[in-house]
């Protein structure tokens, strides 16, 4: 675990609330926090805590019911349209075309990002090689294992060299080899300056990965800070202990 690397904001969240149509309660209530340039922010909490909703709002997929989200480029406030091309999004679902090959998927999303050849082809080759998929680039994704699909899912999110990367459970359902490949690539990118906002239920993985932690429960922030500080504050030995201490053992829907 590393300390906070930079104090310049890249995202500032002020009191955002989200209530889905016909829902009986808020999914997020008055959530405020900052994201600093170059950090790896982990958002954790039990099922239904609001993690995916929060990431979806920050990446522009969902509108918020109220509150403000400010984005910054070079310490200057920027509107969302300007920041959008600098965003990478790795959803929890396999958001890809299983009928197409790995290369065709990457090429399609790369072109949608406005990338052109030969840079795009170089980028595709490089990502496939880094993620150990260069030998299956021309195979259809339908024939891929879960771990291979998860790696392609990540590669698509990285195709535009994002400055801010949203990762919604990027390693769910993968074997240890794929997990190691994914996490090592993410660390490498972060070392080059990519800001990462990450959710996961793999708490051991998260302990090693995140610079800072945001704990959510019932749509509210219940703790925020570096993991070391939070463990000390709440007298916990691990992130799992911390979550159990703060959210209880009762099963969630």
């Amino acid at each position, binding site marked *: 675990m590393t300390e906070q690397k930079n104090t310049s904001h890249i995202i500032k969240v002020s009191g955002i609330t989200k209530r889905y149509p016909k829902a009986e309660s808020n999914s997020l209530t008055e959530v405020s926090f900052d994201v600093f340039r170059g950090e790896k922010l982990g958002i954790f909490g039990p099922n239904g805590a609001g993690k995916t909703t929060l990431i979806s709002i920050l990446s522009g997929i969902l509108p918020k019911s109220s509150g403000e989200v400010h984005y910054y480029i070079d310490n200057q406030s920027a509107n969302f349209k300007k920041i959008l091309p600098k965003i990478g999004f790795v*959803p929890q679902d396999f958001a890809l075309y299983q*009928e197409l090959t790995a290369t065709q998927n990457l090429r399609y999303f790369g072109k949608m990002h406005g990338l052109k050849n030969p840079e795009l082809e170089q980028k595709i080759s490089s990502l496939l090689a880094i993620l150990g998929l260069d030998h299956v680039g021309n195979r259809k994704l339908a024939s891929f294992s879960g771990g291979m699909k998860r790696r392609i899912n990540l590669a698509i999110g990285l195709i535009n060299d994002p400055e801010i990367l949203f990762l919604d459970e990027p390693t769910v359902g993968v074997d240890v080899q794929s997990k190691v490949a994914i996490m090592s690539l993410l660390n490498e990118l972060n070392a080059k300056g990519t800001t990462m906002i990450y959710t996961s239920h793999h708490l051991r993985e998260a302990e090693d990965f995140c610079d800072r932690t945001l704990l959510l429960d019932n749509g509210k922030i219940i703790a925020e800070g570096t993991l070391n500080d939070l463990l000390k504050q709440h007298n916990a030995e691990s992130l799992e202990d911390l979550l159990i201490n703060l959210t209880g053992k009762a099963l969630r829907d």
Partner: protein
Amino acid sequence: MERFKASLLKEILLLLHDKVGLLLMYLMPLLLVFIITIVQDSAFRLVNENRLDILIVNNDKGHLGDSLVQSMKNAGSFKIDVKKGIDERQLANLTLEGSKLATLFVPSNFTQSLSSNSQRISNAMLSEFGMETEPRSNKGNQNAIEGGVKLIFDPVLQESFQVTLINNLQTMISGIESKEMIRQLYADMGYDEIPAKILKELNRNRTKIEAKPAMSGESAMIPNSTQHNVPAWSIFAMFFMVISLGSNLVKERLSGSFVRLQTIPGSFLHAMFAKITVYSFVALTQLMIMFAIGVYIFPLIGLPKLNLPSHIFPFLLISILSAMAAISYAAMVGTYAKTQEQANGFGAISIIIFAAIGGIWVPSFVMPDYMVMISKLSPLHWCLEGFYSLFLKDGSWDQLTGPVVYLIVFTVLCQFLALWRLRRQHYI
């Protein structure tokens, strides 16, 4: 442009991968158009080429039974087989067991009965003119029914054919009766037969009926099973793309691909536009293939050739509007369906219902009035109306106003509802 080209390529690859969708969009309508046209062509031939098989049991002892048989042969409306000496009681079994659709029984006293009637009328007429004659037969007062013909139908024969046959028969018997009555008049006035000059005039002065289909132009298109079925099943084929396009949209929504596109500026509309472009191409190739088969393949297997409309621009307009209506409907189903199964099930059933009420299977003009009203709700009905105007009536712009307006309104409405839904789901 690069984004559009990439989306176009992606859509083409997805479409080529969708083998079931391609079969449903291209092969199924081809099979349907072949099967239905062959079946309907037989019915068209039965009506239009008058090949109703009839058995005539002519037991008449006089000459008028033969005259009736000859009249029916001369009419060219029937395929006639004549037998003699069969008992009236055997007729039903003979019809049911045989291959004939109807049996006409001419009784032994047919001539005698007709002659008696004619003599009775002749006597009455001459009496009116003060020219009393000695009755030449004492059977003139007998009931005409006694010498009437009997027609036994196979139960499978449609009522319309029965009515056609009865009307034909009635006309021929009336002709024989008239001629017999005039012959009787001349006989009562002392002539051996009707003078040749009078006979010639009687035949010459028959009122002619000229029948032809209503057309706005001078085209010589003849309505037949091909002219109905090729456009009808082409429309059905286009609308059946709801299976492919509808489930394609649901799949992209559920897989999260649309969500990913949301995070790429401007990409979603490019993707949608590419989808519409590819499926427009599909719809127009469906039309081209079906029409080409109607023009080039049908004549090779003995089916009537498809005559293409002479008005090219209205033809293109109706084709494009039909394609857009089909794509828009499929897009609407794809954006509202929650699962692929829902899109496929609802999409297919709705198109079958639209086809049934829209006159694809059975032309709407044979439907009851309330069904004709309901048929106007079907987009397939308006596509078909447009093509009917072009293919069967060689229609011009005036005749196409209704279909054009409806199809534009339908397309705009479906697209609006689809976009509204996508907006509600924050994709656009």
